[in-house]
């Protein structure tokens, strides 16, 4: 019976995808473009070898970001601040990581620790504000995003800027060779394609860790019941305040890893072009994957696919922004249908239960 319900739950994203495609097709028709052609072009571009590597690379930070957000969601917390947290983590890690050189595995490990510590600290502020001052984390994390942006801009132009540089714009010193993450191309015999980021390994480990943490440990159990019913959690002996802070710190910790994929993989330094928006994109993936480690992986790949395949549209006279609309549609619709399906399942269970009562 559990299987039956699991399958039913999966129908929600499928419905959402279908409706979203439908709506997007409608919009394309309205602006005078052929939906079938558009999607065909996108699809063909998307499954090319080079694209696949690009898609996997893109999906790595999306996935980790989604996990960071999902940890919060499981506890009923909305960590919208993943955006600010990951950027802070990446900047500090980029600066400190470039100051020295040790053997690669240790160097990378050190960079990871610095990033995670920074982002957790930034997230902890929101946790503290919620617990001590009752400020809702949606507002505090968003405000902290803006504040973080300002702090990053300031420190990048002053203390973190590469000294003696001929380059006009501010940026951190480049990471030494030992601080760069080697690509995985050797293992897959795809040496002719661009780098497949080594951070993929970490992303998979993160997913496994997340699953174990939330569903297998007692801490995860506490998180989930506090998220479902904070009052019953309190009556069961849980200290909700302590848990809020723990959850925010954990979520922030995961966030710190988000920027490291790009940083260790190809940027190798923090510049003003460093990828932004990953924190917000992660929220979408978490909602789409419903906080499930596998679901979010699929969601991340899907969004990455859409992003990549849409790039070809410019060459075909279709506004590539249609892809952002599609993402947004998918999100809103899937969220509605998850709720609809959930209620359906509950009704079914009630029916099953009351059948037994009359025996």
């Amino acid at each position: 019976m559990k299987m039956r319900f699991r399958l039913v739950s999966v129908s929600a994203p499928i419905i959402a995808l279908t409706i979203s495609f439908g709506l997007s097709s409608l919009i394309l028709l309205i602006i005078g473009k052929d939906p079938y052609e558009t999607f065909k072009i996108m699809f063909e571009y998307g499954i090319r070898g080079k694209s696949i590597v690009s898609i996997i690379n893109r999906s790595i930070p999306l996935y980790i970001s989604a996990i960071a957000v999902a940890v919060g969601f499981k506890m009923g917390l909305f960590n919208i601040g993943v955006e600010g947290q990951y950027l802070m983590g990446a900047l500090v890690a980029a600066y400190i990581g470039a100051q020295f050189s040790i053997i690669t595995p240790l160097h990378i490990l050190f960079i990871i620790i610095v990033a995670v510590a920074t982002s957790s600290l930034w997230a902890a502020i929101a946790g503290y504000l919620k617990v001590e001052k009752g400020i809702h984390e949606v507002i505090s994390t968003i405000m902290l995003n803006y504040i973080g942006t300002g702090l990053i801009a300031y420190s990048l132009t002053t203390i973190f800027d590469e000294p003696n540089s001929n380059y006009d714009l501010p940026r951190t010193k480049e990471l030494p060779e030992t601080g760069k993450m080697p690509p995985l191309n050797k293992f897959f015999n795809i040496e002719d394609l661009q780098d497949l980021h080594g951070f993929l390994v970490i992303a998979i480990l993160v997913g496994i860790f997340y699953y174990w943490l939330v569903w297998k440990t007692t801490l995860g159990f506490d998180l989930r019941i506090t998220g479902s019913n904070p009052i019953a959690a309190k009556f069961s002996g849980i200290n909700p305040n302590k848990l809020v802070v723990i959850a925010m710190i954990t979520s922030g910790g995961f966030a710190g890893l988000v920027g490291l994929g790009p940083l260790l993989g190809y940027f190798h330094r923090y510049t003003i072009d460093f990828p932004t928006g990953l924190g917000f994109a992660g929220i979408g993936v978490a909602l789409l994957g419903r906080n499930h480690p596998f679901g979010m992986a699929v969601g991340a790949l899907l969004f990455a696919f859409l992003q990549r395949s849409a790039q070809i549209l410019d060459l075909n006279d279709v506004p590539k922004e249609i892809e952002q609309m599609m993402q947004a549609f998918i999100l809103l619709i899937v969220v509605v249908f998850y709720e609809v399906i959930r209620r359906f399942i509950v009704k079914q269970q009630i029916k099953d239960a009351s059948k037994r009562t009359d025996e």
Partner: protein
Amino acid sequence: MELYSLNIDLNQYVDELSVGEKQRVEIIKVLYRGAKILILDEPTAVLVPQEVKDLFKNLKDLKNNGVTVLFISHKLDEVLEIADEISVMRSGQMIDTVLNDNVSKTQLAEMMIGKSLPTPPARLTSTDEKVILKVENLKSNDENGRTIFEDVSFEVHKSEILGIAGVEGNGQKEVVEAIIGIQALDSGKVIFKNNDIEEQGTRERLESGISFIPEDRQLQAMIMEMDLTNNVIIGRQNIKKYKSSLGTVKMKNAVNESEKVISAFEVKTPGTSTLATALSGGNQQKFVVGRELEDSPSLLIASQPTRGIDIGAQALIWEKLRNSRDEGLSVLLISADLEELIGLSDRIIVFYQGKLVKEIEAENITPEDLGSYMTGLKK
């Protein structure tokens, strides 16, 4: 108001009124709109006997003035007192409609649960001497400095059910929550099995042998969206039985325990993976009570343990409570159902305006008298 002899001071704020008066305001409101039919859903749940008498007088007057009253209740005595005609429903279906003169209480009860009622047994053992829980001079104020309760001292012995009577809002709920560690104490001692536990957190108290059945099962005792297996761990997720040294949850043990509870307490459910929200109220309550009792606690705090559930479930819970008490359990019982309170308890203490005003053996008191103490009429 005059017509129906419902007397209220019109200038008072609603939240300063007593529960009975609030109810009268509701009735006035409805009549003001010209209602010809008055539907009352469990109106006496929070009233003391005097207020019930007043309500019934009002209802009889209303009836004589042409108003039709639909009185929904599970309290058979009251239904038999006030109703002309009685309809019995079960599982969403109408069972029968009978005239009041033609039916007895037992018959009604049997119509409601569909089978014959068990008869309560006489008490086999007697209260032990040993004191399991002792509270001394408990006091607590709220944020505005108003006293919630003060000077509260009492003892609970082994193999005893101590009933706590009080109109809602007189401090008894908070005292009990203080014993379990959720309500903050300004001063006083809580001594459990000869240990001072005021400094302990709720979790430690739960793990040291105190079990708690909160009054709102859906909000406070269970996680509705989770299944029964997960719900059986709540309150004790950190003990060795459910938590491994790595910090993982021992699901197998949870499943076993859940199934044990389901069978021992006759919880009607397709299985332990059913979501809590799918169960009926009575089955949910049976599960919660079962979960708390199967833990073999030394002290059980039960707040409104049979509120809003069917007669069959209620009878089962009573039986289980009595059996556990006979085997040595100490129970602190809060109930607004005075018959339940008097029927189950060995001793009863009464709360009025945050203070303990009376202590008496259960066999020596009637519901009317108890109601008088609860409303401060008697001292």
